[in-house]
């Protein structure tokens, strides 16, 4: 008798242990959330949150397509999301578990339909533009007062780049960002899928590549803030983070972000649940938590990216909602374009061209 009581206590303890060990594994971009939100989620739900980060869509995609990634929530960007939906990498969202979906911003949800046509698999987390980060003082020193800081000519005209190479220029190491911009500069359709049209960017990029100090997708934040480089072609929020870091450091570096007047790429990072997620129920709880107006506002206030959550806007800090570099005005919004995923054949062409531009081989 005694034995069986002990036994049932042990079983209860084990069950208790199992219940409290519920886990949700989230795989998000690096530097992309206010970390206090992670603790808040754990306290509110009692679920252990395992938070992991990546810095390129390619790494995430390879994990998803290999299968068994073990993650419950992942954050792919638009074109990658679309391709992964086609590959069958995600499960449909159970909207009955996501009451906070009513907070979403219709305008953004509508644009996201380009990638998730039935709005069945993903919710928008953050969105932004790709443009030019400028160290005002140094650029004017190199190019004069009327430097074309709001134009792609700043980084795609070899005459300008030759003068800027002294103070340092970084480009994103992402052909899917640079090629559409170069096409916009040439007056072509930035979303072109035609390899003959895409090939027109090669001479332009080859001409400026020697003046690019580095092709890298995250180092430019610190490099801009420290004054090591004077121009970066990168993501809006990253450049704004650099602006703020420089301001905090009071090092005399003044950074501005410009969405190029030739048009800027508008991108969307979205949360989705992998088809083989170990804990889809917990994943829904995390999504619902993130879509809470105050939580989403806290995240945006921290990372300086706009979000797809209309209800959160009243909780946004003034320097976020009021900044047209983050929440563009209607005129700029008109000037933003989106892109579609490349087919494997075009992708191969683009990767090969990119290697050639960077290494000369």
């Amino acid at each position, binding site marked *: 008798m005694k034995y069986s009581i002990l036994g049932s206590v042990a079983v209860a303890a084990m069950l208790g242990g199992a219940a409290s060990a519920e886990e949700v594994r989230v795989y998000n971009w690096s530097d992309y959330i206010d970390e206090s939100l992670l603790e808040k989620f754990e306290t509110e739900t009692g679920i252990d949150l395992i938070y992991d980060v990546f810095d390129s869509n390619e790494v995430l995609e390879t994990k998803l397509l*290999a299968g068994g990634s073990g993650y419950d929530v992942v954050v792919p960007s638009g074109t990658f999301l679309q391709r992964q939906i086609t590959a069958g990498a995600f499960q449909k969202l159970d909207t009955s578990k996501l009451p906070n979906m009513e907070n979403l911003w219709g305008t953004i949800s509508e644009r996201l339909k380009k990638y998730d046509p039935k709005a069945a698999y993903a919710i928008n987390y953050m969105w932004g533009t790709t443009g030019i980060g400028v160290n005002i003082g140094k650029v004017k020193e190199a190019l004069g007062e009327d430097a074309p800081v709001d134009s792609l000519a700043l980084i795609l005209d070899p005459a300008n780049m030759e003068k800027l190479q002294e103070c340092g220029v970084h480009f994103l190491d992402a052909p899917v960002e640079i090629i559409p911009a170069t096409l916009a500069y040439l007056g072509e359709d930035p979303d072109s899928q035609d390899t003959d049209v895409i090939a027109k960017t090669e001479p332009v990029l080859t001409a400026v590549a020697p003046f690019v100090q580095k092709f890298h997708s995250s180092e430019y934040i610190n490099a801009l803030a420290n004054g090591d480089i004077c121009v970066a072609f990168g993501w809006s929020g990253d450049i704004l983070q650099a602006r703020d870091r420089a301001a905090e450091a009071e090092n005399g570096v003044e950074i501005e972000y410009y969405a190029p007047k030739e048009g800027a790429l508008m991108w969307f990072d979205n949360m989705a649940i992998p088809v083989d997620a170990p804990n889809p129920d917990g994943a829904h709880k995390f999504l619902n938590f993130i879509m809470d107006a105050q939580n989403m506002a806290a995240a945006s206030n921290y990372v300086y990216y706009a979000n797809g959550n209309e209800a959160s806007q009243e909780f946004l800090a003034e320097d976020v909602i009021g900044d047209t570099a983050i929440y563009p005005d209607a005129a700029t919004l008109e000037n933003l374009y989106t892109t579609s995923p490349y087919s494997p054949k075009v992708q191969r062409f683009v*990767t090969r061209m990119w*290697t050639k531009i960077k290494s000369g081989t």
Partner: protein
Amino acid sequence: MTRRTLLIAAPYLWLLVLFFAPFLIVLKISLSDAALAIPPYTPTIKDGVGAMFAELDFENFVFLTEDDLYWKAYFSSFRIALVSTFLTLLVGYPIAYGMAKAPDEWRATLMMLVILPFWTSFLIRVYAWMGILSNEGLLNQLLFWLGLINEPLVILNTNLAVYIGIVYTYLPFMILPIYAALDRLDPSLDEAAQDLGCTRTQAFWLVTIPLSKNGIVAGSFLVFIPALGEFVIPSLLGGSGTLMIGKVLWEEFFNNRDWPVASAVAVILLLLLIIPIVLFQRNQQKQQEAEQ
């Protein structure tokens, strides 16, 4: 009898499970077609064994011959691996020699110092080199301070940084086999050579070097083979002009999402490596026979 069979079977089983089976999987993928699915190639095992064999073809290997990127990358990797192996030998041999000549009570400490870096993650050590070699890094600051340079030396993001990284990382793999060979040398051989009229330098080149040949060969292979496929060091320390097959493999796998072509690149790399591996194996065998 059964014990003996087991003893013989164990290494073969090891090879079968950890080398041959994975290789067959990679070979199979290299003969498939890329697809947008999980996993991203077709046909897979789910399509049945029949389908797997019906659709095999060599188009991915043919593709590799059509673009000069691949052979240039193989060639460039080969050159970088060869040069770094030579440099590692140049640095490693004197260290091993010094260790072997050191007094007995010192040797354990010296050995420890060679192995010590392994206690820190390889990745962190390579990152540390980025801090040392960058334009504002420790090395340039030191040279500035000494008044030797006026402009920073650009080392990071060049092939020179890759050589430094490889030599640094693989140095222990060169030192240890050479040390083992030198340690076993009978010092009286050297003395005998000098008694018979050799100078110390002659004795070194004519007696010590040939007798430590096995260590040199083993060390060189241990450095050359992993350096050929190296990915981490060139991607962290090298520049965009550093062309290595490890990076090409990464791009095929991650950027193009083309597992079949990536696998074909890997199969060719393995075939290229089999030659030095077989040579290495033969050298080891000869050495063992010589000892018996």
